[in-house]
C-alpha cells in the first residue's frame, strides 16, 4: 500500500512523540528523560513538516525551525540544571528528587 509522504511523516511524528512520552515516563536517568522530551519535540517537528507538505506551504517548516531553536535553548538550560542537580546529589536518578510531596 502506497502512502503519501505527509501521512508517513505524521505517523512517524506521532510515533516519535509517543516514544518520547514513554521514555520520559519510564527512564529514571534525568539526562535520558531530558532526551525523551527532545524526542517529543522532534516528533512535533516531524509532524509539522508533514503538515507543511500537506498544506503545500512553508509555514510548517518555519514553525519547525523555531521549534528547533527552542529545543536548543531548552537543551542548554536542561543540561545546566542537570549539572546543578548532579553536583548537589551526585546522582541523576529522578527518584532521588522527591523530598517534597503530599
Amino acid at each position, binding site marked *: 500500500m502506497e502512502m503519501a509522504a505527509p501521512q508517513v511523516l505524521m505517523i512517524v511524528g506521532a510515533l516519535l512523540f509517543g516514544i518520547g512520552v514513554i521514555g520520559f515516563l519510564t527512564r529514571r536517568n534525568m539526562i535520558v528523560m531530558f532526551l525523551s522530551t527532545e524526542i517529543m519535540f522532534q516528533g512535533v517537528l516531524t509532524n509539522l513538516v508533514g503538515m507543511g507538505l500537506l498544506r503545500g506551504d512553508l509555514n510548517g517548516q518555519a514553525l519547525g525551525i523555531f521549534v528547533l531553536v527552542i529545543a536548543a535553548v531548552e537543551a542548554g538550560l536542561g543540561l545546566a540544571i542537570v549539572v546543578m542537580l548532579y553536583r548537589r546529589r551526585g546522582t541523576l536518578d529522578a527518584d532521588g528528587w522527591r523530598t*517534597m510531596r503530599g
Partner: protein
Amino acid sequence: METLRSTAIWIPLLPLIGSLLVGAIGLRWLKDRSHWLVIGGVALSLVAVLSVVSTVVGEAGRAHNVDHVAQHEGVDVAHTSDHASKLTESFTLYQWMSMGSDSWLNVSFRVDQLTSVMLLVVVPIGFLIVCYSVGYMRDHHGHPERGYERFFAFLGLFLFSMTVLVLAGNFLVLFVGWELVGLSSFLLIGFYYQKPEAAKAARKAFIVNRVGDFGFALGIWLIYLTFGTLDYQKVFDSVALAMQYDGDTYPAILRDFQALLGTDRVPDATAASALVLNIQDRITWIALLLFCGAMGKSAQLPLHVWLPDAMEGPTPVSALIHAATMVTAGVYLVARCSVIFAASPVAMWFVGSIGAATALFAATIALTQYDMKRILAYSTLSQLGYMFLALGVGAFDSAVFHLYTHAFFKACLFLGAGSVMHAMDGVIDITKFGGLKKDLPITYRTFFVSALALAGFPFLAAFWSKDEIIHAALAGNMPLLGWIGLLTALLTAFYTFRMVAMAFWGPKMLPAGVEHAHESGRWMTVPLMLLAVGAVFAGYVGVTFSDHGFIGFLAPHGVFHHFLDPVFASAKGILGAHEASHEGYALMYWSSAIAIFGIANAWYFYTKRPTIPGAIALASGPIYPLLKNKYYVDEIYDAIFVQPLRKVGRFFFGSDRYGINSLLFIIGNLPRVLGFGLRTGQQGAMQGYALGMILGLVALLWFVLQG
C-alpha cells in the same frame, strides 16, 4: 356608664401601683412598713369595687324592668333595649394586637353582674387577707420575715391579675389575667424559695397550669377562627343566634349576624349559613378546649396535682389564691362562657362528670391526710368539683353562688389553719398537736363555724349553695352526679370534723419545741372573725322567702340568682330552661342529716374512740395507702409524661451531637477524604506527575472525541 368604666379601670391599677412601688422602694426604704402601700391600694380598689357594683346593681335593676316590659310585648330578647346591652358591652381601653386591615384585638373590660359578683369575692377577701398577712408574716416579736416587702408586692400583683381576669371584656384579656394570676401564684408558692419543695411546687403549679392554658389558647384561637372576634358578647350572641337557627328565620339571622360581626365578615346569606354551620360544628371543640384551661386553673382532674403542693406557699396565699379566688377562675370561665357550654351537650356532660369525679376523688384523699393545709386543699378541690358539677348540669347561678359562699368559709378555714401554724411555729401536721381549743379561742371559734359551713350544716353558707347544686343535679338528666354529690357531702362533713377534732378537741398536745400556744394578734384575728361572719351569713343573699312549710320559708334562689339571671339567660334559653321548682325540701332534710351524721361520726371516731380510724385503715387493705398516696397520680405522671419526655430530650440532644453533627462531620470531611485520595497522586516523583498528566490528557481526548 362612663364613670362606671373609668372607675373600673382603677380596680386593677391601684393594687398594681401599690405593688410596683413596694417592689421598687420596699427593700431599701419601706422595709417593715411595706404593707401600707399595698393595703392602701387594695382599700382604694375596694372602694372602687363598691362603687362599680352599686352602679351595676342600679343599671341591672333598670334593665330588668325594661326587659320585663319587652318580654311582655313579645320582642326578642337578643336585641332589645339599649339599657340591657350596656352592661354586656365591653369597653376598649386601647388597641393591642393588630390583626391586619385595621382590625385589632383590644384590651377591653366588661363590667356586668357576674363581674360584680367576682369582684365582690376577690377584692374584699383579698383586702382581709392582706391585712391578715401583716400579722402572719412576722415572728412572735413582730419582726417581719425575710422578703416581707416582696410578699406584699406579690400580693398586690396577684390582686391586679385577678381583677384583670374578672374584668376582662374579651377572651384575650381573660387569658392575660389567667396567665398573670398563674405568675403570681408561681411567685407566691415559691416565696420560700430556699425550700426545695417550695421551688418545685411553684414550678409544678405554673407548668400544670400551662398544660391547661395550652388547651385554653387553642380554644381562643378556634374562637377567633370561627367568629373572627374575641369579644365576649359578640361570640356569645353569635352562638345564641346559631343555636336559635331553625332554617326558617333567615333574614333575621342575617341581619343579626351583620349587626354583630359586621358586614365584612358576614356579607350575605351564604356566609351567614356557613357561619352557623361552623359554629355548630366547632362549638363542642371550643367548649372542651376552654374547659382545659378551667381544669388547669381550678385543679380539676386530671390537672389537680399542683394544688396540694401549692400549700408550700405562705398560708395567706393558700387562703387567697388557692382557695378563695384564683382557683375559682375556672368556674368563672365556664360561667362566663355559659352560652358556649350550653350549646354543647357533650361539653356539659364532660364538665359535670369531671366536677363530680373531682369532688369525690379529692374528698377521699382528704380523709387520709394529716397536713391541715393539704386537707383543706383537697377540700378545695372537692368543692370546686361541686361547682363544676353544677355548671355541668346547667345550674350556672348555683355554681357561682357556691363559689361565692365557698370563698368566705374556705378563706376563713385557711387563715385559721395559718393561725394555728403560726402558733405552732410552723408545724401543721395534725398528729403533732391537739386540743388547742382553749389556747386559741378566736381561731377555734372561727374555724369551727367555717368548718360547720363547709360541712353543710343547716343554715350556714354552704348549706344553701351545696344543696342547690345537688338538687339541680338530681333534677337534671344526670342524676348520678347528684348522688355523687350527696356522697361527697358526707365525706366532706367527716374529714372536716376529723381535722377539727384532731386539732382542737381532745387532750392538749403541743409539738416539740413549742412551749405555749399564743393566740394571734389583731391583724390576724379580725379578718378571721369577719370571714366567719361571712361563712354564716353569706348564704342568705341566695335565699328567698317562700310561703311553704316550716323550713321552707327559706328557699334557695334568691336575690343573688335574680341578679345573675341576665348573664345566664341565653344559656338557659338554649338549655330549654326547665324551670323546675327550687323547693327541694326533702333534699334539704336529707342533706342536713348527712352533714350532721358526718360530723357526729368524726367526733365519735376522733375524740371518743380514737382507735377506730387506725383499725379501719388497717382493714381496708390497699385502699388506705392508695388514698394516703393520693392515688399515686404524681408518680404516674412522672412515669408517663415527665420521664419519657426527658428521655426524648436527651435523645434529641444526643442526636444533635452524635447524629446531626456526625453527619455534618462526614460532609465537612468529604474534602478531606477526597484530598486524602488525591494525595496519593502527589508522591513527589516527577515521572508520576507526568504519568498523571498524560493519563488525564488521554482521558480528556477520549472523552471529547468520543462524544
